[in-house]
């Protein structure tokens, strides 16, 4: 389920603002709405796919680690045009927390040996998919900002 949200605090021209319930699978709703919001922004198809993956992973983190999968606690998503950049702000109500559990660098060889857990790819994927990753929190709301810069091979 998604719902419209009132303006949040991310500066720039808002392309979309909505919320999803903290239920497993709702990251797909978020990525689809973000993709629709940036459809005419000039993102190349490859970079759009990267942004979609980052949005999905950040939303999953917000649902699971921030809102502890409580369905009545929303994840707010805001899509902003800031100059040439596309910024997606994803906010949960978890305050200060690790956005994707332990911040260990995933090492596939160690995972295959069994000395590192198989999971733990979320933050790694986010960092590799977008041009910028910033976090902020006010003690109650934790926000992850994903930025796709408007340079290089297009936005």
């Amino acid at each position, binding site marked *: 389920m998604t719902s419209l949200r009132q303006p949040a605090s991310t500066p720039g021209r808002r392309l979309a603002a909505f919320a999803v319930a903290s239920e*497993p*699978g709702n*990251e*797909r709703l978020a990525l689809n709405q973000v993709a629709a919001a940036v459809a005419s922004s000039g993102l190349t198809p*490859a970079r759009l*796919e*990267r942004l979609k*993956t980052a949005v*999905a*992973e950040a939303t*999953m983190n917000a649902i699971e680690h921030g809102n502890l999968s409580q369905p009545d606690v929303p994840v707010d998503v805001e899509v902003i045009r800031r100059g040439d950049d596309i910024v997606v702000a994803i906010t949960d109500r978890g305050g200060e927390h690790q956005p994707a559990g332990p911040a260990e660098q*995933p090492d*596939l*060889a160690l*995972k*295959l040996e*069994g000395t590192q*857990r*198989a*999971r*733990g*790819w*979320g933050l*790694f*994927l986010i960092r*590799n998919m977008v041009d910028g990753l910033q976090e902020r929190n006010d003690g109650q709301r934790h926000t992850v900002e994903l930025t796709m810069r408007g340079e290089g091979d297009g936005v």
Partner: protein
Amino acid sequence: MKRTCTAVVREVGGAAVIELAGEVDGGAAGPLNAAYEQAVTDGPATTLVLDFAAVDYINSTGIALIVSVLARARSERRSVVASGLSAHYREIFDITRLSDFIEVFADLSTAVGQVAGPAA
């Protein structure tokens, strides 16, 4: 709309092929593990082909499931190859280094042709 993961096992050219469809996320654990069991029970296949041609979404939990399947296969001295990945998920296989351990082919027929080797 969510497309629940399905995994169908069949033998093609001597290889055990697991044809995945839908979304490879946390919900894929049951179908993928059951398919692996069937694939290694039905025959002596030493190579498993994971075909992603009908997959439209893979998330980090799905990546972890693939890692688990790969770890188990390696412990049983089986190799795993992949086919049908989109350019985006091929990139993710590269970034995560899965492609260092899982040879990636453009499509299933190419994968099976390579796995089976030249006809006698």
